[in-house]
């Protein structure tokens, strides 16, 4: 009895953690500034998964997979890292001029199945997914996920080296530089799925400060056939840009793949 209750609880947890439920919560890396001058600037970054943009009201982001790339391609380590309940924080020291990418790429796999009358959940690396489900399991659902959360900051003149693509999952190929955004202007970005233009992809653009408005003021923009979206910024501020593709064919037999891309972009007056 106790064991089956536990199994039930695990199953509930699995439902709560499934990507469908997770999309209600929004992941973000929010930099204190994105356009910097001087020889020795720092930025502070808040990292959270919240309901309201950009108010840390739900969970801190785990920083294990945070990768900061300098303009010359070197990896920069986050400094002054702190893990609070609702948000994690870290600093980035911009020792080089140019554009940095701050990213958290969460890659993994899960399997949900029923065996011996119980619902089970497995989580791990995508390479172990094929072997994760025991023989005799029923109601099997294998999911691979690649969830990329990014932001960009620039010291001095913007550079483009950090936009190099991996051709895996959803990625942003900026046409307009993401640290060169101004209210009233139109920015263009190309979104790629596995390196190919994500034509027709629906992209959510949501401004921060949602707590102080009744209207969330979000827009959904469809990418054209070349995967390009055009956004005319109505006002200065921090914006959350997000797109997801679900139930793509996975690498493991019978697996589906969910991919997601998120960026936080600053628009200046």
């Amino acid at each position, binding site marked *: 009895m106790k064991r089956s209750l536990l199994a039930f609880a695990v199953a509930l947890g699995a439902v709560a953690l499934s990507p469908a439920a997770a999309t209600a919560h929004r992941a973000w890396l929010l930099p204190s500034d994105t356009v910097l001058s001087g*020889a020795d600037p720092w930025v502070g970054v808040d990292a959270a998964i919240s309901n309201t943009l950009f108010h840390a009201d739900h969970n801190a982001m785990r920083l294990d997979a945070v990768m900061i790339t300098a303009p010359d391609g070197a990896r920069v380590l986050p400094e002054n890292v702190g893990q609070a309940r609702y948000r994690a924080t870290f600093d980035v020291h911009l020792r080089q001029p140019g554009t940095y990418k701050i990213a958290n790429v969460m890659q993994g796999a899960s399997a949900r199945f029923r065996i011996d009358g119980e619902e089970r959940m497995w989580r791990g690396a995508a390479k172990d997914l094929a072997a994760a489900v025991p023989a005799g399991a029923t109601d099997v659902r294998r999911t691979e996920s690649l969830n990329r959360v990014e932001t960009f900051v620039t010291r001095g003149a913007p550079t483009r080296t950090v936009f190099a693509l991996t051709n895996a999952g959803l990625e942003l190929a900026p046409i307009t530089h993401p640290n060169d955004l*101004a209210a009233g202007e139109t920015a263009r970005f190309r979104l790629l799925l596995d390196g190919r233009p994500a034509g027709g992809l629906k992209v959510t653009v949501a401004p921060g400060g949602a707590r102080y408005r009744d209207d969330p003021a979000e827009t959904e923009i469809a990418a054209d056939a070349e995967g390009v979206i055009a956004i005319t910024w109505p006002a200065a501020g921090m914006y959350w840009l997000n797109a997801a593709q679900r139930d793509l064919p996975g690498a493991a037999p019978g697996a589906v793949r969910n991919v997601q891309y998120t960026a936080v972009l600053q628009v200046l007056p």
Partner: protein
Amino acid sequence: MRSFSLAAVFAGLAVPAAWADDLTVTFEVPRLRTAEYHAPYVAIWIERADQTSAGTLAVLYDVAAPNNAGAEWLKDLRTWWRKAGRDMTLPADGLSGATRPPGRHTMTFDGARSALRTLPPGAYTLAVEAARELGGREVVRAPFMWGAPGAAATATGASELGVVSVVVASSR
């Protein structure tokens, strides 16, 4: 087509070489009654008809701060920073200087030096931007015709700048 006709106009006028002229800029830093006043950072630059920068004439900031620490706030001159500043290295000889107190300030830029030396004759806009710590930011623009000395053009700011005027003067 447009540049062709402009060139024809100047050929017809047989204007002297542009370097013979100077550009005199006057700008007013308003006196503001605030609890904590800091003189604004000011950038003065030239814009082409398409609003791109044709050169920076002056950047007035906290040049005396140790380790060029004042450069940390140059990005607050947002318009200039985006058009020109972020591609420059400051301090720079002949460009950077100390901030100016409230009052009317006149700066004359030598046509044989500075960004004016290589500026082709034609219609431009002079832009003055001021950004103040614990205060606001404002850009004021006034037109001038490089290569054609004439009357001053003026424009007036509403918050961080007062009257701005620009005049092309023959230095001969």
